[in-house]
C-alpha cells in the first residue's frame, strides 16, 4: 500500500482540548452539536457548544459545509462568464456581488460606466439591501418565535424580487449588472414599480416596528444580549450593521463613495449599545435610508446609454450586429474568447448588507482572471461568535446568530 503525500492532516482531538473547559472532559458539562442541520443556524453553520445547563460556556463555530469553490471556478472562466458565479456567493446580496465584481473588472481594464447605468445600479443595490434586511428581520424574529413578521417581510420581499424579475428575467440570480454597465435597459414598468415600492414600504416598515420595536417580550430577548464593543469589532475586522450598532459610523457608501453614492443624501444610522437590539435598530433604520436613496435616484434617473461604448470590452447591441461588420466581429470575439485584461491586480470594496465586501482581482494578460478573492463580511463577522455568546443562554445564542446575519454561502465560498 502506498501512502499518498498530502498536506491534509486530520486534526487530533488533543489539539482541540483548549477550546472547551476542563469540565467538559469529565462529563460535568454537556457538549452539544448544533447544526449543520438545525433550523436556526441559517444554512449549514455548525456550532459545537459546551453547555452548563442551558448556559453556553464555549461556542466553537465550524464552517465549510457550503464550500463551493466559487473563487477557484471563476479562474477558469472569462471575465464576463465568471460573473455568473458571483450571484451564488451571498445569495441574498446577488446584485451587490455583481456590482462589486463589475467595479473590479472596470477598474482593472479601465472601463467607464455611463451615468444612467450607475444610477440604476444604485437603485438595484439598495433594493437588494432592503430585500436582504427583510429576510433578516423575518428570520431573526422567527428565531425568537415571533413568526408573523417573517410572513409580512416575505410579502414585501416579493415586490423587490418582482422588480428584479422585471429587469433581468431572474428573481435571485440576476447577473443584471455587467462590466461596463447593465445587461440591457430597464423596462418601461420599472419606474412605476420602484415608485410604488418606495411609497408602500415605509408604512410596511412601521408595521414591523409596531410588532417588535416596543414589544416588551422582544426587548427582553434582545436588549443586552450578545454585546460587542467597538474595539472588538475593529480587532475582529467586523464591518457593516454590527460595527455601526457598536457606535462607529463606518459605511463605505459614505467613506469611499462609488457609483455616485456621493450624490445622494442619506445618513449612516448608528447605535452605541452593540447588542442584538442595537443591530436590529440599525438595520431597520438602514432600510429607511435605502428607501431615501432609491427615491432620490429614481427621481433623478438620467437618460442616455446604459453601457459603455468601448467595444473592446462591452458587446455591441443586437441592432448593430446586423448592420455592422465590426460589431459582428466584436460580438464574436467577446463571447468566444472574452476580453484580455492587463497583468495587474486591483482591490475594490463596496458596502454589502452585511458589511464590507471586497474583491481582489488579478489579471494575467489573458481573458481569464488569474486570481479572484472575495473578502466577505460573513466570514469575518462569524469569527466573533465564541466571544459574544459566552455565558448566554442557548435561546439567546439563536438570537445572536440571527443578529450577526451571516450567510454561509458568503463565508464558505
Amino acid at each position, binding site marked *: 500500500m502506498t501512502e499518498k503525500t498530502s498536506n491534509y492532516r486530520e486534526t487530533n482531538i488533543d489539539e482541540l482540548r483548549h477550546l472547551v473547559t476542563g469540565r467538559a472532559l469529565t462529563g460535568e458539562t*454537556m457538549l*452539544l452539536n448544533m447544526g449543520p442541520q*438545525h*433550523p*436556526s443556524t441559517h444554512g449549514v453553520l455548525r456550532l459545537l457548544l459546551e453547555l452548563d445547563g*442551558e448556559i453556553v460556556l464555549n461556542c466553537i463555530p465550524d464552517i465549510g459545509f457550503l464550500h463551493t469553490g466559487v473563487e477557484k471556478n471563476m479562474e477558469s472562466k472569462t471575465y464576463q462568464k465568471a460573473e455568473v458565479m458571483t450571484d451564488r456567493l451571498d445569495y441574498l446580496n446577488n446584485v451587490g456581488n455583481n456590482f462589486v465584481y463589475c467595479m473590479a473588472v472596470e477598474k482593472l481594464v479601465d472601463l467607464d460606466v455611463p451615468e444612467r447605468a450607475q444610477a440604476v445600479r444604485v437603485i438595484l443595490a439598495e433594493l437588494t439591501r432592503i430585500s436582504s434586511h427583510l429576510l433578516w428581520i423575518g428570520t431573526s*424574529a*422567527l*428565531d*425568537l*418565535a*415571533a*413568526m*408573523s413578521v*417573517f*410572513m*409580512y417581510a416575505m*410579502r414585501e420581499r416579493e415586490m423587490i424580487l418582482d422588480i428584479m424579475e422585471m429587469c433581468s428575467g431572474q428573481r435571485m440570480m440576476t447577473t443584471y449588472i455587467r462590466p461596463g454597465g447593465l445587461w440591457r435597459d430597464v423596462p418601461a414598468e420599472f419606474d412605476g414599480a420602484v415608485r410604488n415600492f418606495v411609497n408602500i414600504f415605509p408604512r410596511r416598515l412601521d408595521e414591523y416596528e409596531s*410588532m417588535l420595536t416596543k*414589544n416588551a*417580550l*422582544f426587548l*427582553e*430577548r434582545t436588549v443586552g444580549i450578545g454585546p460587542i464593543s467597538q474595539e472588538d469589532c475593529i480587532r475582529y475586522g467586523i464591518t457593516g450593521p454590527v460595527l455601526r450598532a457598536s457606535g462607529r459610523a463606518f459605511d463605505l457608501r459614505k467613506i469611499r463613495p462609488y457609483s455616485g453614492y456621493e450624490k445622494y443624501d442619506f445618513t449612516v444610522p448608528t447605535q452605541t449599545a452593540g447588542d442584538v437590539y442595537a443591530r436590529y435598530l440599525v438595520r431597520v433604520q438602514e432600510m429607511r435610508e435605502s428607501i431615501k436613496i432609491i427615491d432620490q435616484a429614481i427621481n433623478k434617473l438620467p437618460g442616455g446609454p446604459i453601457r459603455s461604448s468601448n467595444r473592446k470590452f462591452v458587446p455591441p447591441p443586437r441592432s448593430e450586429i446586423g448592420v455592422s461588420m465590426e460589431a459582428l466581429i466584436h460580438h464574436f470575439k467577446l463571447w468566444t474568447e472574452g476580453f484580455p485584461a492587463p497583468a495587474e491586480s486591483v482591490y475594490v470594496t463596496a458596502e454589502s448588507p452585511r458589511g464590507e465586501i471586497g474583491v481582489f482581482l488579478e489579471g494575467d494578460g489573458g481573458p481569464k482572471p488569474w486570481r479572484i478573492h472575495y473578502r466577505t463580511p460573513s466570514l469575518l463577522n462569524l469569527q466573533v461568535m465564541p466571544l459574544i455568546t459566552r455565558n448566554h*443562554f*442557548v*435561546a*439567546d*445564542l*439563536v438570537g445572536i446568530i440571527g443578529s450577526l446575519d451571516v450567510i454561509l454561502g458568503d463565508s464558505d465560498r
Partner: protein
Amino acid sequence: MDAALIWEWIIKSVVILLVMTGGFAYVTLYERRVLARMQVRIGPNRVGWQGLLQPVADGIKLIFKEELTPVGADRLIFILAPVITVIPALIVTAVVPWGTEVNLFGRIVPLRLADINVAVLYILSVTSISVYGITLAGWSSNNKYAMLGGLRATAQMISYELALGMAFVGPILWTGSMSLGDIVSAQKNLWFVVIMPLGFIIYVIASLAEVNRSPFDMPEAEQELTAGYHTEYSGMKFALFFMAEYIKMIGVSMIGATLFLGGYQGPFVDAYPWLGPIYLFIKVALWLFFMIWVRATLPRFRYDRLMAFGWKVLLPLSLLYIVVTAVLRLLVGG
C-alpha cells in the same frame, strides 16, 4: 344503580373521547387557517371543501409513517411517554358540565359525565400527570435536545402550576364548592371574570404555560431545540404528543370558560337546555382563537425569564388576588 345508568355513562364517556379527538383534529385545522389569515397566507384549503378533510389526510399520513426508536433509547419509557401524556389530556374534561339536563327519550339526562365534589382538585392532579410524560420523553430519547426540552418542561410546570392552582381558588371561594357544576350555576347572573378579572388574567397566562403554547412553548422551542422533547418521535407516537397538546388546549379553554366565563350559561339556556353545549362551544372557540392570536404575535419568553416571571410576578399576584377575592366575598356577604 340500574343498567341504563351504566350505559349512559359509557355512552357519555365515548362521546367525550370522540369529541376531544375530533376536536383535536379540527383545532389543528382551525389553527392553521387562522394563523395563515393573520400572516397573509391562505392555509390548507385543498383537501375537501375549505380544507375540511386536511386533518384526516394528516392522520393517515402519520399512521403510515415509519416509527423510529433511537439507538440507546429506553424503549419501554420511550413508548410509554406519549401514552402518559395523552391520557390525562383525554380524561381531564370529564368533570366539566356541558349543560343542565335534557329529556332524551323520556329519560332525564344530565349533560355532564361526572359532577364530583372535588372536580377542581381532580383537574389539577390530572393535568400534573402529563408533565411526567414530557419529561420522560425527553429523558428516554437519548437526545440532548430532547433532554433540554424535558428539563425545561419540568421547570416550567412547577413554576406555573402554582399560579394555575391559585387561579382556581377564586371561584371556589365565591361558590363555596369545588364542583364545577356549582361554580357554573353560581355564574348565572354574573360571570366570575367580572368579579375577579385578575384571577382570569392569571388563569389565561398560567394556562398558556400549562399547555406549552406560545409564548411559553419552551419545551418544544423549535428554533433552539429543533423540536424539544419530541425530537426523536415519529409517526403515531409523535401524533400522540401533538394530540395531547391540542386536547389540552381544548381542555384548558373549557375549564377556563367554565370557571370564569359562565360555562354553558347564556341567554335562554333554561328554556332550551340544548343551547348549553353550543354556548360552551362558542366560548371555547373564542378562547382557542385567542391562543392562536397570541402565537401569531408574541416572541417566546426565555427560559430563565419565564421562571422569574412565574415566581416573582405571577405567584405574588395570585396571592393578592386570593386575598382580594376573599375580602370581596365577605363584603358582599356569604
